[in-house]
């Protein structure tokens, strides 16, 4: 393992990881305020990518992005209103199943409309490579890393200073108390779904710019989940850093094992995220930056 390989893996890992980070952000946004883990998030991400690609056929790229984000937010509101609100207060397992079922519906819709082939954007970003400290990096990678950084700051400021953000944190901390103190749980949940869905769409657009979208890429959502767990499910910086870490680990360690094929472990790159999940959960069950939940009788 040379230094060059390591450095190369680091830079490319950050490029991949920033997409995981953006998707993990959606998990974190929703979990932070509603304590719901949306297992349909991977599908929402891909839907965002598909819709943006379909829209770029008609309108210029920036307008298509704005429209996609708007539509994603609307979809988030709709999901909250139609599906999640009647199930308010149901046990965890029912909610997990409902989000999984939602994933089935979205995936079915995507396959029905767009079929199984991979869709890509028309060239909207300058193609080629950016050189960071002499290491080549895809332009899309640099773009998504920058987007992740911007969104991190935006959401951090939002949760830290805005009234709505504080209300959402309060609801996450203790729903009943927050509700007693005048926080509208319905509004908080609706906003959380809209934000998460829009953040997912951003991830989907970047994924589309980078690899193109295909409904079979749903596993990206699960890897992003690994990132979320690593960083702590209710932490926004955790989601971003977790995403970058998973990206780097996958590229460096997975790439090393795959190129050198140790003990016939081919394809290890795809599974390493789950090994990381298991290790992190065993050492720190609440993630690197998550809030430790102290249980009292």
């Amino acid at each position, binding site marked *: 393992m040379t230094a060059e390989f390591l450095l190369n893996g680091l830079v490319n890992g950050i490029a991949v990881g920033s997409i995981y980070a953006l998707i993990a952000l959606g998990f974190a946004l929703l979990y932070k305020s509603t304590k719901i*883990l949306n297992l349909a998030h991977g599908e929402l991400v891909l839907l965002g990518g598909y819709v943006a690609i379909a829209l770029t056929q008609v309108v210029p790229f920036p307008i298509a992005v704005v429209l996609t984000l708007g539509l994603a937010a609307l979809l988030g509101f709709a999901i909250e209103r139609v*599906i999640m609100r*009647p*199930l308010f207060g*149901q*046990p*965890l*397992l*029912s909610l*997990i*199943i*409902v989000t*999984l*079922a*939602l*994933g*089935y*519906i979205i*995936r*079915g*819709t*995507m*396959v*029905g409309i767009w*079929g199984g082939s991979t869709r890509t954007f028309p060239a909207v970003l300058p193609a080629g490579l950016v050189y960071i400290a002499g290491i080549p990096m895809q332009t899309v990678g640099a773009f998504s890393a920058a987007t992740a950084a911007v969104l991190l700051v935006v959401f951090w400021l939002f949760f830290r200073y805005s009234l709505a953000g504080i209300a959402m944190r309060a609801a996450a901390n203790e729903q009943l108390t927050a509700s007693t103190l005048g926080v509208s749980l319905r509004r908080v949940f609706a906003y959380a779904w809209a934000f998460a869905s829009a953040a997912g769409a951003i991830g989907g657009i970047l994924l589309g710019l980078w690899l193109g979208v295909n409904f079979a890429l749903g596993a990206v959502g*699960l890897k992003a*989940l*690994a990132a979320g*767990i690593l960083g702590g*499910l209710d932490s926004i910086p955790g989601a971003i850093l977790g995403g970058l870490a998973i990206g780097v680990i996958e590229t460096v360690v997975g790439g090393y094992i795959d190129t050198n094929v140790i003990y*016939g*472990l*081919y*394809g290890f790159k*795809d*599974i390493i995220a*789950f*090994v990381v*999940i*298991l290790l992190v*959960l*065993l050492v720190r*069950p*609440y993630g690197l930056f998550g809030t430790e939940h102290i*249980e009292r*009788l």
Partner: protein
Amino acid sequence: MSDRPAGDFKTTYVQDMAILDTRFYRVGFVCLLAGLALAPLWLGRFIFVLNAIGIFAIGACGLTLLTGFTGQISLGHAAFMAIGAYASALLTQGWRLPFILALPLATTITFVCGIVVGLPSLRIKGLYLAIATLAFQFLTEYAIIHATGGIGAIPVPPASIAGWTIRTERQFYYLLLVVWVTSAVFAANLVRSRIGLTLMAVRDRDYAAQVLGINLLFYKTLAFGLAASYAGIAGSLWAHYSRLLTTEQFTIGQSIDYVAMVVIGGLTSIWGPHLGATVVVLLSQGLKIITPMLVSIIPAFGKIATPLREIAFGVTLIGLLIWEPGGVAMLFKKLKRLLNLWPFAY
């Protein structure tokens, strides 16, 4: 409220603990068993549906014990089924053991695997445990693919018991029925035993249970082991039923189906897994028949015939959970209450 008919009193503890506590239930259960035993007569060539229901109901029984009665969420139940299936295949194909030995051995192997997987549940809870089992699901798939090469396809010899080889659907059905009823009765008895009550205490509040002197390590891993061994039985039966194993039969989608069965059927009911497996299998088989019919009526559907099944499955699941979060078992309970009080509402 009491659902017992007038004049039928429980005068002993034995009567109070009985699973089938009224004459209606006892007669109904005998009728159900008779109906199941004669199923090849009234189902004809559709007996394969009942075979699928039975196998998945056994697996779902384990998940009900784990999730419904012990409160531990598992998204890796299909992985245990895979371990049971491959273990059974290796024992009968590689070691030439008879099925009658391979089934309990495969069950034991999955029991041990379940205990190992259950160990982290002491530290990890709720959602995080669900994710850990999800990771276990993927790691198992990966391990089996690498151990067998390719998509993990291996042929399995048909089950044979005392020189009697089981080849047709109908023959397999009777083998399945014996295992199915035995394991269902075992689960029902377990739930009302000391172990079952302890598991429920762990579900309701694990630390409180610990304060009461319950050994969490023992009972949580035991629950995982039991759930895994039920999945192992289902896997072993499945191996000898399908006769060709691939890892594609035990993917994360299968795990999700298991959780769906348990939730649809009713989490805290011993009838839940059986009802849930029936609903899920009938739904997926029914959609397989209905979608081509729809396409033949409206040809424009041709392109979305396959995704339509997924969408319909998702919509049904969500609809059912919104309509009755307690599952089908709760629907039956409500129906019974309605009939008891009819024509008055109270």
